[in-house]
């Protein structure tokens, strides 16, 4: 029994495969999805999506979006996504440090909003690299 998972972003299809289980981060917490899950629609937060294929866990850094689960089919529409194997760990760490520095220097409502978003994204990418496999 497998789930058919489709992760789409505006410019490409990140992932389209059969998986055993996924763990999704939403605004209201993390959801684990197994085959025969009840149909739900949920907003996805900026965070890590963990996928299990044959006892191997894979991480995908998702930058927010929407997920629809039903009939053993999961469609995730993300603003942007990167598979953990495609992320360069050093570059991700540097990006995180730059984002933290930008947040400290941010002044005014607008800059703070932007800096916060950038920080969350950088943090997600670093987490994706450290996923337990």
């Amino acid at each position, binding site marked *: 029994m497998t789930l058919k998972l*489709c992760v*789409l*972003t*505006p*410019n*490409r*299809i990140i992932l389209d495969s059969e998986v055993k289980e996924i763990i999704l981060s*939403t*605004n*209201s917490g993390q*959801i684990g999805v197994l085959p025969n899950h*009840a*149909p*739900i*629609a*949920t*907003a*996805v937060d900026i965070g890590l999506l963990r996928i299990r294929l044959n006892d191997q866990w894979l991480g995908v850094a998702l*930058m*927010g*979006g*929407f997920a*629809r689960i*039903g*009939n053993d089919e999961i*469609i995730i*529409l*993300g*603003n*942007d996504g990167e598979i953990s194997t495609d992320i360069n760990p050093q570059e991700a760490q540097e990006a995180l440090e730059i984002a933290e520095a930008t947040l400290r220097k941010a002044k005014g*409502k*607008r*800059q703070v*909003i*932007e800096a916060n*978003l*950038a920080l969350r994204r950088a943090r997600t990418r670093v987490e994706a690299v450290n996923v337990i496999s």
Partner: protein
Amino acid sequence: MSSTMWATTSAKPTPLSAKASSRRSSLCIVRCSLRDLRDRISSVKNTQKITEAMKLVAAAKVRRAQEAVVSGRPFSEALVDVLFNINEQLDIDIDVPLTRVRPVKKVALVVVTGERGLCGAFNNNIIRKAEQRMEQLKQLGIEYTVVSVGKKGNSYFQRRPYIPVDRLLESASLPTTKDAQAIADDVFSLFVSEEVDKVELLYTKFVSLVKSDPVIHTLLPLSPKGEICDVNGVCVDAAEDELFRLTTKEGKLTVERDTVRTQTTSFSPILQFEQDPVQILDALLPLYLNSQILRALQESLASELAARMSAMSSASDNAVELKKTLSILYNRQRQAKITGEILEIVAGANALA
């Protein structure tokens, strides 16, 4: 000035040599030596090679740009599907920050230009459209600020400090989600922090390989049905997606535009929403915003490449024409020189004999 040196040439000018004779007179003033003409011919030949190569590169890139648009389709189709269904299931009027309609006091204009020149009138057209819009807004008494994307627009606005500019962004060769995200973040924070009340996107729509249109689309406030609105309030339903496709017809590159009506399937009726409708729409509308911006960037890139293709093609043709003219000139001069030498030798021989 012209006729005395060229007395030996034919009296009756042909159309080509009429052009050539006027060029001859101007060339005469500058340089008449065989070597200079030869150098000039070889430089024109090199230039023609370069412009030909640029045209082929642009043609290859248009194909890539088209593939990028095609690979973005599954996302927009799925998104439109979801938006449509969610709207049907939620009848109550929902107040999401991105759809709030406020009285307009300040407008943000996102202007998409190209990174490089040598593309004909492409950059000029979009900048002129931007100037027209700014004039319109000034007459209505509405303030504006500009977010410029692309090196050409950036340098234009940098040289004019009287235009309020918010941010200057540059993008690499093929627009990625990160570029669209950067613009979306900027626009999002401008709108939500109430610094501006309306955001308009100015980009060049790709009509065909020889025609492109600068258009203005209202980006924010979004309408919850997922419609894209023109400045005049003309709304295009997102369920009708326009696609352009580069194909070959009778051996020539052409572009076909289709309108694809995406089929919206209905959701399972027992579908539960994990969060309340406001949060769901809050997550969906930025996705829509991103995909709109990315589409605009991709179309703008395709228009730029098509403009470059046509500009380089006419440059190549002009170079070939110029080389022909110069070659004729060169040969005429070479023959005149030889004739001169023969005359001298014969005259000398006669004098001795």
